[in-house]
């Protein structure tokens, strides 16, 4: 019993100290430790990266489905005070220095006053896979599951903004949510979008996710959906939208969620850019091997396949290629149903299990814009945009 306890303690300690293994798991799991699972009210057990503010990650196996079910969809907050909102009493304020006709909308008015639209889109946290970064960087140590794909239903932000009257000098649209901090000095989580992105027909104020009212932990009763852009812009529990003639200078725009200027492709956010840094914007082309898991043992002669998801920032996926020989040769995988250019696309390729031995399976996706996943990580201090080609090692026996 003593020995057993000691072994467990060593396993737990090893989670922090073992050298990093580049695999489809955050380091703690790669070192053999079980991730801590916890269930928030209304959610199934998710990987508990932090309890307060809540940061819960979707387990890898749950990312196999075309649409990630609401009870397993990841949860990400910056601030710890998160009110449960009565939809009947919720109000959305629209105003700002460049709004000609400020107004307030109830949920009923929002749902009934504008054309309703649905679209499928990946919601991916900017810091997804930060826990796989090399060298390691501070922040929530996410594995692969700070993302999911859902069908979002709501109204176009641009229809609502037009109702509020967009003045010609408008530059940015600024979004606030209901979550708040303990200390008055802590900056509230407030984000902005360039006007042109706010007016894009795909930017929604959503009140449904996968045909159900938005779950509390995913932004009830209404949240922003910015298909193709990382999750930081998808403001949850929306309370206020301001149309402004100046660049918003809050902490979460000016200091957080920034990349070295020019280091990555993707839309530019000109009003927020400096010579040194620029806001993260679009999701880069990427893929995820969901099955087999790293280290899986595949019975010889039994049919097997590699499968997972591929996605990008809205061009859509053109092809997914698989290598089983250490990235020397590549073959195209079969693609699943096209759910829309902002959704992920399932890929699948049978594996030859006729002879025993190790297999190194690598997967790389290419978008319709021609962008392809890189082999090498572009380091940045906040650990964003890890879209390098991943591989898993398995054994046929």
């Amino acid at each position: 019993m003593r020995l057993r306890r000691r072994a467990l303690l060593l396993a737990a300690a090893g989670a922090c100290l073992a050298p990093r293994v580049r695999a489809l798991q955050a380091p703690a799991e790669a070192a053999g430790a079980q991730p801590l699972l916890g269930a928030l009210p209304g959610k199934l057990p998710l990987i508990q990266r932090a309890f307060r503010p809540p940061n819960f990650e979707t387990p890898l196996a749950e990312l196999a489905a075309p649409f990630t079910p609401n009870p397993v969809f990841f949860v990400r907050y910056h601030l710890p005070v998160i009110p449960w909102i009565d939809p009947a009493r919720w109000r959305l304020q629209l105003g700002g220095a460049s709004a000609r006709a400020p107004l307030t909308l109830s949920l009923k008015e929002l749902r009934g006053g504008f054309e309703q639209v649905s679209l499928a889109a990946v919601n991916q946290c900017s810091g997804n896979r930060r826990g796989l970064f090399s060298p390691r960087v501070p922040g929530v140590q996410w594995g692969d599951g700070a993302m999911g794909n859902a069908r979002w239903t709501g109204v176009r932000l641009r229809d609502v903004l037009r109702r509020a009257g967009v003045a010609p000098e408008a530059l940015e649209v600024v979004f606030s949510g209901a979550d708040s901090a303990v200390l008055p000095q802590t900056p509230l989580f407030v984000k902005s979008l360039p006007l042109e992105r706010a007016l894009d027909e795909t930017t929604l104020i959503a009140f449904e996710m996968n045909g159900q009212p938005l779950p509390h932990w995913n932004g009830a009763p209404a949240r922003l959906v910015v298909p193709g852009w990382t999750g930081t812009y998808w403001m949850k529990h929306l309370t206020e939208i301001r149309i402004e003639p100046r660049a918003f200078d809050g902490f979460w725009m000016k200091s957080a969620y920034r990349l070295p200027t020019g280091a990555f492709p993707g839309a530019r956010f000109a009003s927020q850019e400096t010579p040194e840094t620029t806001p993260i914007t679009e999701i880069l082309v990427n893929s995820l091997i969901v099955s087999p898991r790293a280290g899986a043992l595949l019975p010889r002669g039994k049919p097997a396949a590699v499968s997972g998801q591929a996605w990008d920032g809205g061009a859509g996926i053109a092809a997914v290629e698989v290598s089983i020989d250490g990235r020397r040769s590549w073959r195209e995988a079969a693609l699943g149903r096209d759910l829309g250019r902002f959704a992920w696309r399932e890929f699948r390729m049978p594996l030859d299990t006729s002879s025993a031995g190790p297999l190194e399976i690598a997967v790389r996706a290419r978008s319709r814009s021609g962008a392809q996943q890189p082999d090498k990580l572009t380091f940045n201090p906040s650990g964003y945009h890890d879209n390098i080609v991943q591989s898993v090692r398995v054994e046929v026996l």
Partner: protein
Amino acid sequence: MRSLAAGVALLLALPPGAPAAPAEESSELKDAPGRDLTVGRCILCHSLEYIPGNAPAMNRAAWQKSIQKMRERFGAPITDEEAKQILDYLDANYSGKAS
């Protein structure tokens, strides 16, 4: 540490697919000089898993930067003397990255 081992044992004992316990706040940090002060100041705004969770990415310089961010950006009520004690505690117990 005993309860950590018990917790790990409990997790390992769960059959796959078994419902996990409702999520709860961790209040465990390593018992060493400076722990109570660290717990007292940090827990005001966030649960403590952020500390061991970040350990693999942290060294003394990174903890110093983190404490500075909490004080200057987020308004954490920590004096200079307390900041030094918290830094010593975090560095001694939760620095998993080479300096």
